[in-house]
Structure formats: C-alpha cells, structure tokens
C-alpha cells in the first residue's frame, strides 16, 4: 500500500497527463465550431477567417439535432464555441434549451436586418433561402398560381409536389402560415394541400423539382438553392430540368415569400469567447457574405452584397418580414397540424 501523499501525487500526475490535451487546447488560439453546414466552399471561408484573425478553426459537422444533443450532454465542459445551423427552427431550439448566450454586437445589429436575428441577440442569420414554387412552363400559365394559399385550391388536384412534413423546411413554411392565419385556417389549408398532392411526399426538394420537370406534377415546392445548383450543373439532364420550369415567388401581393435562414450563435459555455465574437462579426463582412451565399446559391443578408449570378437571374422579390423566431417556435404546432391533415 502506498503512502497517502505519494498516492495523491501519482493520481495527480496521471490526471494531469490525461487532461493535458484539454489544457493545451485551451491555450492555443482556436475556435471550436459545431456546424450543420457542410459545403466544401465554406472551407475557403474558414481559411480566410484563420488568415485574418489568427484563430485556427476546429470543426464537427453533423445534423443540427445531433449537435444540440451533444452540447446538452457535454454540459458546462462543452468545447463548442459557435453553433451554426441551416434553419431557424434548430437555432431557436438551441436558444430555448439554454445552449446559446446573447451577443450584443453593434456591428451585427447594424448589418443584419432585424427580422433575421433573435431579438435577444442569441443568434444571427448570415444567409437566406426562399421557399418558392417551380412550375411546369408548358402546363401552368403565368400568374395561374400566386400564393401558398393557392396550393390548397382544388384546381391543383393531383398536381402539387412536396417533401415530407418530417422535414424542417415544410414545418417552417407551415409555421409561417400559422403565424399569418392561425391554427384552424392553417389546418384547412394543410388538408387542401394534401388533397392536391400528385404523390405521397418522398425524397428531397431536388426530387420534387425533377418530378415537376418529368411531368409527375405541375407545382413543386422547394428552396431556391436546390434550383440554383441545377442551374449551375453541366449535366444535360439537369439543364433540361431547368429549361422546363419557371420560378414563382409566392405571395408578392401580400406578406411576401417565406424565407428560411442559415444562422449562428455563441455557445453558452464557449471557452474561446473572443474568437467566437470575432467569427460572428467576420461572417457579416462582405467577403464572408460572398463565400457564404455564393457557395450554396443563397441570398446574402447584408445590404450591398450581391447574390451569386445564378440567383440574381431570378430577379428581386418581396420577402415575408416575419421574424424567424416566430415561425421557428411554431414548428411543433405546425407538425401536429400536418399530422392531422395526413401530410406524411
């Protein structure tokens, strides 16, 4: 049996040895990023930030729900400094779970429109994507479908293509509907939409776009960047798809087209707070805005930064000014409504 001081020294030494990587990590100038964006083009952005600020970036990229679960289980020791999600629902959930901390930044407040950031400063959006319709040019006349509400019009019976209600984009769109019309009207609308489906929801947004081009339906609901990607593709079959479809920005005469966002916030237990703040402000610079938006055919949020050419080609539109926090908080209620309406 070892004497107590020796034993304690040994244990201490062992603990130090085991903990040394953690200590080393804390001392270097790093930024630990938990991100659900995983576009190759974002790497140029990270490299640029490292070059400018001197902070090296460590990344874990995973689905937003997984990242939230990980931050929850890691608790106060979580190494995450910044969380990035690709929709408003998840960043708002992170915020309501207490996983983020407010950041009162004059820079961000002046550059990012008020409806695209959390009123309490827990998160900020850095790019947007519009939820629009892609209609078959040969079957749908100009102006024949103008609003989300039109999707429930019986004249579109067997013509509407959408992805599953499990998907967050469907939930956010319905969440925005809920904010505009309340639960009863939204449920009636959802039932009408389900009655108009060309087929049971399946696949992703790109699958809806392709199905509309192939004639399986007339109106596909999709985010803009999926179409932007097809527009850039060199494949003949993708070019043919783009050729057959027309983009419709819904609700231009009233509240505007529903936007979803790619957003970021500082983790509640961030260890590299300076790096995290620097990173968020960096994301609002014109250079970073270009990387962020251009890499994925999205819209920048900072005024004066041009969208990529394939996006600019669709023209300007009126966006729904509803704060992303509102429809994000409506997600669960929206899903229940969609369940009752039989939206799979």
């Amino acid at each position, binding site marked *: 049996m070892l004497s107590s001081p020796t034993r304690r020294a040994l244990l201490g030494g062992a603990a130090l040895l085991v*903990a040394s990587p953690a200590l080393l990590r804390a001392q270097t100038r790093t930024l630990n990023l938990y991100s659900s964006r995983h576009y190759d083009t974002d790497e140029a952005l990270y490299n640029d930030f490292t070059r400018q600020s001197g902070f090296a970036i460590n990344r874990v*990229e995973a689905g937003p729900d997984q990242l939230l679960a990980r931050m929850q289980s890691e608790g106060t020791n979580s190494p995450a400094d910044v969380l990035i999600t690709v929709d408003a629902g998840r960043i708002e959930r992170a915020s309501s779970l207490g996983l983020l901390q407010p950041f009162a930044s004059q820079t961000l407040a002046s550059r990012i429109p008020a409806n695209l950031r959390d009123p309490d400063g827990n998160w900020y959006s850095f790019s947007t994507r519009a939820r629009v319709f892609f209609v078959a040019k040969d079957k749908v006349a100009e102006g024949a479908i103008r609003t989300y509400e039109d999707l429930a019009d019986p004249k579109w019976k067997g013509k509407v293509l959408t992805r599953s209600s499990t998907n967050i984009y469907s939930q956010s769109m319905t969440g925005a509907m809920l904010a505009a019309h309340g639960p009863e009207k939204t449920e009636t609308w959802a039932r009408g939409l389900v009655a108009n489906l060309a087929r049971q929801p399946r696949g992703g947004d790109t699958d809806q776009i392709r199905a509309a*081009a192939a004639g399986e339906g007339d109106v596909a609901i999709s985010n803009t960047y999926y179409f932007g990607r097809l527009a850039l593709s060199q494949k003949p079959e993708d070019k043919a798809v783009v050729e057959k479809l027309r983009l419709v920005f819904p609700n231009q005469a009233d509240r505007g087209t529903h936007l979803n966002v790619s957003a970021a916030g500082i983790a509640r237990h961030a260890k590299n707070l300076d790096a995290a703040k620097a990173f968020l402000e960096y994301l609002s610079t014109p250079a970073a805005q270009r990387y962020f938006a251009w890499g994925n055919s999205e819209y920048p949020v900072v005024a004066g930064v041009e969208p990529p050419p394939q996006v600019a080609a669709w023209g300007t539109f009126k966006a729904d000014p509803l704060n992303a926090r509102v429809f994000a908080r409506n997600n669960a209620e929206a899903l229940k409504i969609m369940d009752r309406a039989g939206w799979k």
Partner: protein
Amino acid sequence: MTDALLGQPSLTDPRPAFMAGRRALLAVALVLATVVITPILAVAISVVQQSGGAIAHLAETVLTEIVLNTLGLMLMVGAGTAVIGVGTAWLVTLCRFPGSRALEWMLLLPLAVPAYIIGYAYTDAMAVAGPVQSSLRAFFGWSRSDYWFPDIHNLPGVSLMLTLVLYPYVYLLARSAFLDQSTCVLEAARTLGASPLSAFLRVGLPMARPAIAAGVALALMEALADFGTVQYFGVTTFTTTIYRTWFGLGDRVAAGQLATGLLGFVLLLVAVEFLARRGRRFGAGGRRHRTIAPLQLRPRAAAAALAACALPVLLGFILPIAALLRLHAMDGDSLVNPRFLAYAQNSFVLAGAAALVVVTAATMVAYAGRIAPGLFTSAVIRVASIGYAVPGTVIAVGILTALGGLDGALDGWSQATFGAGTGLLFSGSAVALLYAYLVRFLAVAAGPVESGLHQIPASLDAAARTLGASATKVAAAIHAPMLRRSLLTAALLVFVDVLKELPATIIVRPFNFDTLAIRVYNLASDERLAQASTGALVIVAIGIVPVIILTRMIARDTRLGSRPGA
C-alpha cells in the same frame, strides 16, 4: 447476482484456480454487459418520465399506420432475407453448378453497400428521366404516358431494398452452419431414403436453426432501426416516427418512450425464438471428418440454381454499383483529392480497431454464457445485444448521455480532490467512438460467435478435461481453431458495419475527423447524389477487402477438409 451466476452446476471443476478464472470471466462479462446496457438504459429511463403529450397526439393520428407499416416491413424483410440467405447458402455449399465457386463470395458483396445508398441508386436509375426509363422510351419509341412502370417508393419497394443488402447476414451464418454440419448425419439421412432436398429440409435446416435465427434477427433489427432508406422512400415506420417526435415535435421523452417500446418488441421476439429453441441441443452429431461431397446438379437444375444465386448479386450489387458508377462519371467527387485519402484512412482504421474490440468483447460474453449457462446469463447477453435494434441516433444520444455523465462525475471528483477539473476526457474522443461501436454492434459479433460456440459439443470439452487439459488449454487448443471461422465472420460483419455506420460516428466523433460514410451522408443529405456516389463506391471497395479475405479463409478450410485439432 454473482451467486446466481455461479450457482449453475455446469462443467464444474472444484479446483480453486478454475473457479477463480471462471469468476473473473463472469465478472468481465458482467462489466461489459453493464457498460453496453448503460446507454440503452439512458433511453429507457424515459418510460418513467413525463412526456409533452406527443404520444396521445400520435395515437390519434398516425400510430396505426406506422405499426402496420413496421410489421409489414419486418415480415417482408424477414421472409426475404431468410429465403434468399438460406436458399443460396444451401445451393453454393451443398451443390455444384457452373459458377458456384465464384458465387460463394459474390453473394456476400451486397453487404458492402449501405442500405440508403442502394435506395438512392435505384431511385436515380428508375426515375422517369433516369437511364432505365429513358432507354425504354428511346428503344420502343414510347412517350411517358404510353407505358406502365413499377413504382418502388412504397412498403414492398423499401422492403426489397433492405432485403437485398441484408440477406448476406443470413447467408453468411447459414453457410457457416452448413459447412460445419456433420457429413455423417446428412449421410445417415440419405441412407434412410431421404432425397437431398428432404435431407436438407428435415435435418440440415433444423440443425442450422440457431445460425439462421441469428442472421434473420440481425437483418430484422437493422431493418427496424433504418431511418435513411424508409424516410427517403416515403414510408412511415416506428423509427421515422421516433425521429419526428424528437426533432419535429421536440419531445425527447416521448421519442425515448417510443424507442423503448420498439426495444420491448424486439426483446419479445428474441425471447420467443429463444424459448422455442430451449431444451434442444444443436451441437450433437460430432464433427465432420471430411468434406461433404457436393451434389452435382444436372443441366436444367444447374441453370436454375445459377439464376437463383446470381439474381441477388445482380440486384443487390452489380446494378446499384453500375448506377453509382454512372453518377460518378457524370459529376463525381475528385478521387485524387488528398482529403479523400484521409477519409478512407480514418474509415479503415476505425473499422479495424472496432472489429478487434467488439469481437473480443463478444467472445468474452459468449464464453460466459457457455461456462455458466442459465437464464440470467442468457438474458444479460440478449439485453446487451439489443443496441443494434435501436435507431442509430437514439442510441447515439444514449451514448452521449452516458459519456457526459461519466465525464461530469470525473470532472467533479477531480475538482474536489485536486482543485482542478479534467474537462471532457471521453466525450469527443476516439475511445468514445469505439465505445459507441461496441454498444451498436455487439449483437453483430455475438450472433456468429455464439452460434459457433453452440456448434462445439460440450462433450468435447468434457473429453479434453478428462484428459487433464485446463479450461484455458481447452479454449486455446480446441475452441480457438474451431471458432476461427465464426470469429472471422464476426470481425468481417463488424468491420463492414462500422465502415457504413453513421449516426453514432457523426455525433460522437472528435473535431476535424471525417470518414467516408460521413462524407457520403453529408453530400446525400444535401441532395448532391452524384458527388456522394464517389464516396459510396470507395466504401464498397474497402468493404470488399475483408469479404475476399474471409472467403479465402473459408475456401482453404474447406479444401483441407478437416479442422486442426479434430
């Protein structure tokens, strides 16, 4: 608990050294089981918690449908994998026909194809604008409305997809069992007037039952836990509902309760199979003394056998790979990218390390079951293997919770003792990943190892012990050589599974650590299938390596005819 374990009078040896060794093994097995069960308990604890009312909402809306869909999926995948797996295993093992040698290993190839990848490949190939329909239209001069084309995006379609990639589990285990069966027993059946087919049906098949059951159970558990494929095909199952409840409705407790319900169902199935099998012995009949003379098939039968065995390979491997190659050629990732090499290396090293760890653990647990047979040990083994049936993300979060709890406790202890915390020691480390694989895949390794051990008659142990061999000697000189094929089978299955594994890897991994599966998933979830095809092809290519090694090993064993030590 230890008393209960030791109370079983089996292969007892009063010598103290033996008892100590036995106790140590049992203790290790018990610790392993506890470690593996912890994340499952972290999920199951939800049963006693208050949910946000999502269950009532589900019961009113979608519950009936998801239960019917899930049962339908299990029925179709269970029947499909059993028929294809057992049928082809019997044909290539006990019959000879042109191509049968090559098919022995080719039948394993679909194992290397992740289920969601085969789903994407078929969707792309069979789409209206895809190559199949386009060629049909061009060839016959049809337009879109002129012909009927089957839609695979429904319950039978997704069951077919899963069956095509899961039947190799059954094939592998059934073939192993057929190879190990005593020639004498089969020949005795023939002498008594049974035709080859009826000897198979009445003797060979029942004797292989533990192995077949283990294979079908693996296939079913994987089908139950599948999210990516069923979701993509628009079929709502228990697992998709768990995801919706958790992520969509934000009700983690209700999701945990649903997952526990799923677990309860699986446990029930396992228990039914186990009880139906109880009291029978499958190891009897002694070892075979020479290679079974395969049945030479006549031309017509040979053609039918060839077609039957080639079809699963064609549908489960060749066609989807061709579809992936087409996508890769159109718009694939660049293979010369140094990042790709890093992904491949990470995948390979992880899969290898996990195979070693998981098979070692499975062997210890299975041994504990052998030296202390009894209801309690069996129950522990079953429960420890249940992680495979839990939807990946759910169990991954259970693992996170367990690791987070451990890290928190260590940190607190260190704070109290030394005045400085340890931070996170395990969360986000490679150890955490291996732990996750142990929890996920213990069942995969336990199946082959256990059924391998079952095939070794207890009388052999008794004989060796009578001749003065120690328990260790028995394990090393008798069991190890006889188990070699089972252990390799287990290692292969774990290797390939880890190569394809996603939910746990993605959630538990360290910073800046990507694997091929993660690359493929990230691209595919972002709807960039063509780019994802390259990573998928590399996964398949790496997965083929152990398949070939295993096949050679089995071929050599078979050539030698008898086993070392027999």
